[in-house]
């Protein structure tokens, strides 16, 4: 169970600045259980965004958004709505956001912070995708997580050791910054990497914050 909570609305609206039309995706698994991105929250977010003058081209709530095959299947009937949107807002944990970034060629915004795995991990078998850092940065990294997948957790681009798409620390590890650059280049959005990402708030992570988190 990945425990997540919605980011403050102002932060989400900041991400959507410049985008007129949005497609919404939620998850019936963990995000519905924690009230961060189930049917109810997707409907609420749809209303909120419309009040703020955005067009919501459509929405879908996938049973398990961390399952790439299932997500691809569930998005198929919404192809036109997704195509009509400037970007996608995903209300779930970091694993779900990264699934969407992987299966859809569109800018993806994270709408939640992932706080904890609650003792378990998402359904992404070959590698870690979300370290539940509590301060999601996927907005600035093309929907691929450098906290989980870069050996130095770099937020402002690749280090000098990225070569041939591999990480210098271990050639069996793909360089996530190469993947981020490739993904954003494909979307024609390398401009997203020009922004200076400021130091991260580690006080909300399990690594640097309190060792045990309690949720009501």
């Amino acid at each position: 169970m990945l425990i997540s909570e919605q980011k403050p609305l102002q932060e989400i609206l900041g991400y959507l600045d410049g985008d007129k039309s949005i497609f919404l995706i939620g998850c019936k698994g963990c995000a519905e259980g924690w009230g961060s991105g189930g049917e109810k929250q997707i409907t609420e977010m749809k209303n909120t965004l419309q009040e703020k003058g955005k067009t919501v081209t459509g929405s879908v709530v996938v049973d398990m958004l961390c399952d790439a095959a299932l997500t691809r299947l569930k998005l198929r009937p919404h192809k036109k709505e997704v195509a009509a949107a400037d970007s996608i807002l995903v209300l779930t944990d970091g694993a779900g956001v990264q699934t969407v970034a992987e299966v859809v060629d569109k800018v993806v915004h994270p709408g939640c912070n992932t706080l904890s795995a609650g003792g378990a991990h998402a359904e992404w078998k070959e590698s870690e995708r979300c370290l539940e850092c509590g301060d999601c940065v996927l907005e600035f990294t093309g929907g691929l997580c450098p906290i989980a997948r870069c050996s130095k957790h770099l937020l402002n681009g690749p280090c000098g050791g990225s070569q041939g798409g591999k990480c210098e620390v271990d050639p069996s590890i793909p360089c996530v910054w190469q993947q981020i650059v490739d993904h954003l280049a494909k979307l024609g959005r390398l401009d997203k990497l020009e922004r200076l990402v400021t130091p991260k708030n580690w006080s909300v992570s399990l690594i640097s914050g309190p060792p045990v988190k309690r949720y009501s």
Partner: protein
Amino acid sequence: MKTRSNLEQVLESKIFAVTGELGPPQSADPEVIRRKAKILKGYVDACNVTDGQTAVVRMASWAACLIAKEEGLDPIVQMTCRDRNRIALQMDVLGISALGMNNMLCLTGDHQKFGNHPAAKGVYDLDSIQLVRMVRDMRDEKKFQCGEVMAVEPHLFIGAAENPFADPFEIRATRLAKKVAAGADFIQTQIVYNVDKFAEWMKMARDKGIHERVKILAGVAPIKSVGAAKYMKTRVPGMDVPDSTVARLQGVPKDQVSKEGIKLCIDIINQVREIEGVAGIHLMAIEWEETVPAIVEAAGLLPRPKFII
């Protein structure tokens, strides 16, 4: 002038700059620093002192810098994010400036996996670009990273590194621009052996007007042996050693290889000097410091200007 840095004065005077590099010992012996500093004095405008390069435990950069300064060098303290969080970094910045250091090179740092303590916990609270901005804000805004204001600010000429040869190549100029926007005053590059690729990178930088906003120093280094060239070519991530470089060293008698390596370094200095926007060289003759005087002289870069620091 933002600082009392000799390097800043040289660069501001539009003189082609020469910086050197000094590796501290894996011991508490100050004589190693003094010996190396004596060799470099008069041949470099400032001298980097590495901060646990390749993640091997060595004397702290700031401490070795203090000794180098006593010997008359203008040291560049190297500061990595690998071993310090934002609290420790800022404390060191204050201390370094208070000790009279004028320059700091902001680095992310070599990963701990490569060193002699691979089980260490890497910190990486900030990345190098965030470090540059933090030091800039401390110097120019008198602000700590948290936003609080300090009474007396540090005066440091701020450097950053860039590797024109690493992947993804297309993002390298953007990343350089970001470092400059964050507040870097000068840039030192990875060692250049592939001059064509370096020239291509410099063109990308010029197209963005970056060479007008920051001083770019091209990294150069003599090669001692064919084995060293091959090692750098195949084993060091982010290094680009062309086949022609290896072939040139292989093409001379064995006892002439190190001489040829020095000649090659001088040739590269002469080539990068011709590239528009290159403000100087960063000569890295690690554990081969005694070659520096001859290289600087043969490249026609003597005498070095004298400023009061």
